[in-house]
């Protein structure tokens, strides 16, 4: 199935199948269709890139207000939504774990609490390098043995009455005394011309769909880019001067002979049904371009719940403010695993136990020493170029079709933090509500803060 983007009419498919990410849902004749269950078209370079900033620059628009309405009615958006409704009830929960990845599962083993997650297929079960490991087995066994304490559903955020969960058509209010945010992290599309083309996808999506792709180009500066390249037998392109590999990542590069090339710029075009990538030192045709620039924690449920976060310039990401055991003093909750930036699953599992086990804290501290997260705990901040920057083109915000150039134009005018960028360009106001774009924009502009992540965290 083919969907067109809202303003520019570009052919798009999801870059990741996480619920709530851009283009994961299409509305067809009023019915919600999960795009991840559909076949996707080959890459096509279509549509019309008209900068939204023209609204301000073309004075004519101000004398022809009917034109605004005319433009509005031509936007590529749904005409109807089929009826649905919710029931609302309450539940007593003392400890709530949000997220069903490795660290969430390991935290669940230590509490009598409840776990809620809308996706229980964690990466460790999908990656051929880990799917048969002991750790993967423990995760699988726990999912089975503790199934009565696992809710498959959404965490919708904080409201005046409490925290809201959704399981199918049921809304459930809870008031837990402790929340463990095992919300994991995500890989977001880097900036380059052609970054919105179908089959430019995240590592997670690739792991789920890898049998469909033969020739793959990997983008990224993280250990997970290396792991992706090993699975995909492809090369890794990293922006010049941005290497965020840990010791283990470097060993893997050596061991598997992974080719890592630093690039100044990259451009991707749709050519005869495949993706043609050109960069300063090379080119090639690919079935998919798979990115894992850096693992960005899902900060939005954490910030929404009143916890603080900050920009970590050493990796160009946003991290919840937390201690080594995962405690977040601003809100009195905990964060584990990918939610605190961790990508190796052994460390992730360990971080799921640190809220309950002081001995694990020391072990985790040792483990993190070998990674680029270590300076977060020692406050040794150095600024690196954003791991998302592969060029000066493409889209920054897919839902509202805001381009990199539009963002740079308002940045040059002094609107540098993500909130100001949002309010001048419309970035982060679309379907994903900034779950993707706000982090990329912030990383590129080194903004100290993101936007206010408002409830509900998913459409409700």
């Amino acid at each position, binding site marked *: 199935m083919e969907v067109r983007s809202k303003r520019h009419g570009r052919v798009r498919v999801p870059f990741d199948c996480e619920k709530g990410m851009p283009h994961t849902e299409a509305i067809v004749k*009023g019915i919600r269709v999960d795009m991840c269950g559909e076949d996707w078209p080959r890459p096509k370079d279509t549509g019309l890139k008209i900068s939204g900033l023209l609204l301000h620059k073309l004075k004519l628009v*101000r004398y022809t207000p009917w034109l605004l*309405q005319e433009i509005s009615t031509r936007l590529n958006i*749904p005409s109807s*939504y089929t009826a649905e409704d919710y029931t609302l009830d309450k539940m007593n929960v003392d400890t709530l774990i949000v997220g069903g990845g490795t660290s969430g599962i390991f935290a669940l083993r230590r509490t009598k609490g409840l776990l809620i997650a809308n996706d229980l297929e964690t990466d460790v079960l999908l990656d051929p390098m880990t799917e048969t490991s002991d750790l993967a087995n423990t995760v699988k066994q726990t999912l089975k043995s503790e199934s009565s304490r696992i809710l498959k559903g959404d965490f919708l955020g904080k409201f*005046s009455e409490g925290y809201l969960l959704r399981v199918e058509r049921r809304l459930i209010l809870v008031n837990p005394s402790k929340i463990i945010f095992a919300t994991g992290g995500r890989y977001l599309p880097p900036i380059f011309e052609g970054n919105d083309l179908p089959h430019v996808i995240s590592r997670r999506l690739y792991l789920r769909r890898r049998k469909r792709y033969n020739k793959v180009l990997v983008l990224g500066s993280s250990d997970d880019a290396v792991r992706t390249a090993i699975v995909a037998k492809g090369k890794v392109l990293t922006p010049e001067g941005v290497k965020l590999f840990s010791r283990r990542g470097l060993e893997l590069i050596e061991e598997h002979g992974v080719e890592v090339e630093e690039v100044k710029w990259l451009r991707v075009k749709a050519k005869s049904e495949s993706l043609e990538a050109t960069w300063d030192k090379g080119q090639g045709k690919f079935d998919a371009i798979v990115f894992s620039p850096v693992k960005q924690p899902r900060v939005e449920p954490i910030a929404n719940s009143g916890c603080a976060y900050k920009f970590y310039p050493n990796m160009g990401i946003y991290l919840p403010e937390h201690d080594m055991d995962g405690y977040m003093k601003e809100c009195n909750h905990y964060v584990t695993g990918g939610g605190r930036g961790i990508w190796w699953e052994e460390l992730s599992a360990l971080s799921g136990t640190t809220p309950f086990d002081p001995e694990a804290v020391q072990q985790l501290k040792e483990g993190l020493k070998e990674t680029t997260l270590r300076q977060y705990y020692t406050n040794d901040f150095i600024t690196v170029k954003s791991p998302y920057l592969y060029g000066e083109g493409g889209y920054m915000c897919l839902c509202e079709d805001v381009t990199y150039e539009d963002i740079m134009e308002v940045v040059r005018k002094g609107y540098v933090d993500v909130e100001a960028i949002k*309010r001048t360009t419309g970035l982060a106001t679309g379907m994903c509500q900034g779950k993707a774009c706000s982090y990329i924009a912030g990383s590129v502009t080194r903004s100290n803060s993101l936007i206010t992540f408002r409830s509900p965290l998913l*459409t*409700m």
Partner: protein
Amino acid sequence: MRVVILGAGGHGLSLAYHLVKKGINDISMVEAKRINYGSSGRNAGRYRYHFYTKENVEFAKEGIPYLLKLCKDLPLNPLCMKTGYLWILDDEKSKDVISRAHSLWSSEGVGGKFLPCNDFDFLKIEEECYLAPQDGSFHHDYLSLGMYEAIKDHVKVIIGEAMRLKVSGGKIVGVEVNGSIIPADVVAVTLGAWTGHFMKRNGIEVPVEPEKKEIFVTEDLKFRVKPLTISKRIYFSHTLKGEIIGGVEDEVPRGFGELDISVERSLSFTRTLRSLVKGAEGIRILRGWSGYYEMTPDHSHIMGFSDSWPDGLYVDAGYSGHGMMFSPYSGKIMADLIADGVKNKFTKIFSPQRFEENKLIDERMVI
């Protein structure tokens, strides 16, 4: 003249904008959070001529054309568009209020008309409606940031909370921010819902109180709800980017609190909207936020100064739920008053002294 403006929302920015136009070059703005943080960045962006009192209708008859003029001049386009306001007369109270107001509006030359609601394709109900076609919409951020963009190189923005006014010999000489005194000949308080709080801290009674309100936006739906539509339960309208924006009409106790939203109102808004709008039967909300209406005892704003205050102290605040649309015009009136000593008739009508003199305005249409 050294002018310090407290609060960088729509009204503060507009005052600065008009002072800069007059050539005043020593302007500082004190903002506790960020430009547009308060109600200026949280409202639904609508304008209207239709108020319950003659005073406010007449103010709108000057203020709204001024807003529309500014829409054409600013470096950002505030997307001003005539959309109308549409009242669904679904209970006796609204019928009564609108019928009374209709004669005032007609005599003021801004009359609307009664018509069946199903003249509007998007509505699913069989009631009587009232359309005020003169009203419309704008983009609140583009309006205030447009004013800011025009003057940002001519004003100093200080991030911090204004604490104490410094007065000497009955005159304002400065204001304390971040532990130090900013010298000033004029301090203009445009703190919106925080105005009463600030003034009280300085021993002056200005009756502006916050009232928390929630706003929701939905997923995209093809543009159809052109007028701002008001039922007894909710009000709502389409934005040009396809969302439906609106809120719940209910009484909320006044006071500062957590700026969150409630599950109850979120569901109430969604359910009512689904029952009213064709095609929106299963529409969901994307997000909600809350902010403050800035309430006065007569639901009308306060502008100017009181004879009992120190010289050089001015206030422009207390616009209930209709502050954004008036920010351009109010800033102009205030700038004329501060820079040139010109007293517009509205500075008398909406004077802070009216509460002592018991000349209340009795505005009842707060949306």
